């Protein structure tokens, strides 16, 4: 249930950004989460429901975009999307395993919607 820690961090960043913009309420929070970030969507939502109480985001909507895992093949010098959930990165063109993950670990607060 590390999602609670993530949500606390998210609310902290969101409130700072909203205040800096002169807003009083946060109406939506948009996250980008990588496919290999180890986040369980239901746990994230559950944590958000609890943690937002008493914050500027008390009535905010939580939007999440999941980003696919992308690795880099040094042989082909090109990126490819992982075709499985297991983190197995094998280049579809040349079958070489890759340890170079370029996308998939993201835990990013992308943007907010705020109101006066």
């Amino acid at each position: 249930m590390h999602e609670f820690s993530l949500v606390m961090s998210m609310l902290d960043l969101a409130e700072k950004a909203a205040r800096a913009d002169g807003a009083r309420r946060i109406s939506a929070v948009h996250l980008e989460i990588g496919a290999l970030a180890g986040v369980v969507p239901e746990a994230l939502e559950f944590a958000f429901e609890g943690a937002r109480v008493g914050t500027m985001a008390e009535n905010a909507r939580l939007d999440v975009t999941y980003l696919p895992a992308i690795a880099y093949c040094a042989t082909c010098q090109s990126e490819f999307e992982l075709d499985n959930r297991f983190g197995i990165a094998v280049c579809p063109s040349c079958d070489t395993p890759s340890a170079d993950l370029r996308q998939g670990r993201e835990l990013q607060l992308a943007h907010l919607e705020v109101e006066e």
Partner: protein
Amino acid sequence: MSGPTETTAPAATPATDTRGSAPAEPAGSGIAAPAGSGIADPGRVVASATTRDVRVSPHGTAATPGARVVQVQKSLMVHNDGVAAANREAFRHSLVLNVVSSPGSGKTALLERTVRDLNGDLSVAIVVGDLETDNDAERLHAAGAPSVQIVTGTVCHLEAEMVARAVDQLDLGGLDVLVIENVGNLVCPAAWDLGEDLRVTMLSVTEGEDKPLKYPRIFKDADAVVINKIDIAQVVGFDRERALDSVRKVAPGARVFELSARTGEGVGEWIDYLRERRRLKASAMAAAATDAG
């Protein structure tokens, strides 16, 4: 390997609950998309605090009437990563390991042996995280290493700040190796950088050969993978080739050690690896100091 049975893990395809396949709205329209329009895969639940499916136009206009968009673009880990960077600076004289595994894989047993085998020519200290009790710190202290217990209460992983507070009790200047034994958990610790040089992920032969496939992130980030309890591998029917294959698939760059912390079999190679990495870090630091001077 049998087919996957879980349906809730994020798949390797983008699932957006805000954009979906609907055409972009012109700026300022502020019209909410119909509920559920962006969710194609019913097997995956996309987090949304309400059932409304709202999107933001490409021009940055808020989908909620009267609201405006504030770009943030910051990692949720930004605070932790900052503390981890400070830890890394404080740890510049020591080789630092972050050891993660399931509960019961033998982290503490391996560290007891590591402390005994390294002590004499290298000084070792341990920071150990558990939800409750200081039993592990007691064991490691008895093995001969200064040990600090972090009792996390309900927190399922260590964070950089907890480690920073814990090492206040240690003399980092004279320390060759610092081992951070994370909370026994293969999911939660993955995202938290503690300021370590090496991430060590352990599994034991009783846990199933496909563990790396079940917990890909924590194995993927591993610099070293330790397979423990090989002394009982035969008794429990451990399929060594299948396990090694799983590790190589998920973590092709990781060094793999097969050992028994209990009998000592295979531990020599692990100890040599730590000595070598410690030596490499010390020379890199010395070279950097010369350059700076």
